[in-house]
């Protein structure tokens, strides 16, 4: 099966579809609490009366259904990819959380974990047609092309990281690779097609690694793409969530990522909020039962996630004209 990359240029964040606000949650590193955060965020948005769809985009490693108490999902994304159903509406699962429905990720075969160009195109088109206020896309760990493409396709992008140096490293790499993925797609229409792809037999030294070098190369060899690349850099805004913070001072690690991304990638990465480490939430994650969820709701993390949810609504309101009153 061919593995053509998704043509991101066809899937710029869609601004003409104000009915659904798509928000991707990534982070590069596993175990930083992306799925737990996304689930809590969905719960809080649902409690505020927003209609939320959670999508498990960790293709091949899907398990968000477990967090919502669905041990074996009746339908998954595999059913849509394999055309067993016609629409994503047919695989939406009701959950125990009010106003929250789930698209469970598939993992039946390796091929389904790596959808091809056509399959990904179909998924993305269908996602934008869903009727809801928010689509929360929970991404897997790592920087696979699928993960990057889903991340780049959403107009709002959250990066979850913990205060650990490994998480910092992975978060930075994730942002950098996402940016290069976007630039690579723009360059695919030019003579520099494939410039950012490492290929066997080519000396790594010949691949420009620093953004300054890449922009230099573009200005010399494909100047017609320079404006589009610069606009793509400006457009790629990312919000950072610090998770499992033991000490409020630890949250300052966000500034490390903020500064490095600004200085070396020209990207605005703003800290949206920090969430204190909450043993009750961790207990829920390990037990996945209703009583643990009830305890987690009284924990110290939820108020912080609530603040983040309010900020997300505020950002969405700015992007969708006429929705301020509703948000208020």
């Amino acid at each position, binding site marked *: 099966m061919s593995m053509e990359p998704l043509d991101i240029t066809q899937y710029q964040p869609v601004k003409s579809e104000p009915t659904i606000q798509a928000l991707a949650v990534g982070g590069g590193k596993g175990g930083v609490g992306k799925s737990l955060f996304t689930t809590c965020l969905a719960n809080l948005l649902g409690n505020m009366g927003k209609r939320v769809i959670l999508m498990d985009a960790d293709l091949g490693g899907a398990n968000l259904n477990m967090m919502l108490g669905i041990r074996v999902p009746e339908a998954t994304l595999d059913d849509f990819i394999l055309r067993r159903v016609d629409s994503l509406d047919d695989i939406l699962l009701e959950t125990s959380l009010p106003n929250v429905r789930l698209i469970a990720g598939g993992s039946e075969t390796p091929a389904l974990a790596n959808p091809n160009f056509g399959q990904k195109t179909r998924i993305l088109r269908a996602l934008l047609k869903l009727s809801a206020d928010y689509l929360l896309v929970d991404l897997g760990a790592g920087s696979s092309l699928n993960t990057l493409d889903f991340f780049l396709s959403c107009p709002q992008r959250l990066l979850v990281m913990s205060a650990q*140096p490994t998480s*910092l*490293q992975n978060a*930075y790499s994730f942002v*950098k690779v996402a940016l290069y993925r976007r630039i690579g797609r723009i360059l695919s229409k030019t003579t520099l097609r494939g410039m950012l792809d490492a290929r066997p037999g080519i000396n790594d*030294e*010949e691949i*420009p*690694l*620093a953004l300054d*070098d890449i922009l*230099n*190369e573009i*200005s*010399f*060899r494909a100047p017609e793409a320079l404006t589009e690349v610069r606009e793509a850099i400006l457009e790629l805004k990312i919000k950072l969530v610090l998770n499992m913070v033991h*000490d409020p*001072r*630890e949250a*300052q*690690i966000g*500034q*490390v*990522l903020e*500064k*490095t991304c*600004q*200085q*070396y*990638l020209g990207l*605005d990465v703003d800290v949206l909020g920090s969430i204190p480490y909450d043993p009750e939430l961790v207990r829920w994650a390990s037990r996945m039962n209703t009583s643990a969820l009830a305890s987690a709701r009284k924990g110290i993390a939820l108020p912080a996630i609530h603040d983040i949810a309010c900020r997300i609504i505020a950002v969405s309101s700015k992007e969708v004209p006429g929705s301020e009153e509703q948000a208020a």
Partner: protein
Amino acid sequence: MCDLHKLCHLLDGDLGSLEVGTLPLKAAELVLAEMAELFSGKAFPESFESQFDDYLSRGQILRAIALLKILSTSDPTGSILLPLLERALLWDADHGLENDTPEVLPQELLATHHPRLAWSVLRQDKMEIVAAPEPGQNLGSITWMIAHDPRPLGPQAPYGLALVWLSTTAVEGKPHRNAQRRTPRRKAVLQVKLTLLGQDAANRSMRGLRAELRDVSTSGLGLSVQNPLAAFSAREFEGRPVRIEFVPPGESQQVSALANIAWAHDKEDRGKPTTQLGLELYESPAEFVDAIRGLHSDVKDDQRCLWNLWISHSTSL
């Protein structure tokens, strides 16, 4: 005289030997084309590589690069010459910090340290023979003098002839920022302390300042100072002597050096009022240079910066 010798005479400033004075000046660059044609389609002279190394070892960077430029006519893809250019760029990395050559460094001239990019720039840049400027007169920020034959050639060239390199690497009409600097600057992010010196540093709000290092070289530093209350203006900084101090990442001992604020301007940085400063070092104590070198790195500058900031962050906890 073999072709290479002719070429070297040209690069060494013996422009008269090629009788360029008999040509109209506007057509003088044709001489270079003629020189290139001498090599076109022929095997390179055996000794070109040792000649190149000789220029490089003497710090005559412009001549070394110019030699490659002329020979590149016969090697447009760089299959033979690109390794030599890489050697020049490495010379920059290996010796650029220690050997303060008065000439421009290859990385500055070609505005990149990346060999393939540098080759592309080398091919696009131009060389010309022009009337030499009056002594002390600047050629401009994108023109570099490779060689100068001071023998006057009439009213058109009273100060003789100059073989120059015209940089075309300027993007959108601006010269690459490194092309204006004596030593290449690298990005760096680190908190530093700045103390204004001198009796006229009366304004107490300016005496001790927390600043953020933005880029470094062994001759100067770029800083950003937060100025939220607009307590001072950029003009108050210019020309002042300062002491700069910081603790290198992972070290416990502070390093410091004296510097002069060469330029300053107010700038809004991501919505916050800041003052940007350019410092020229008066002195370069060994431990300070070592610390600066530690902030330097190669293509993985960003990774280095990430870890420097992480170390600063974790030690502050």
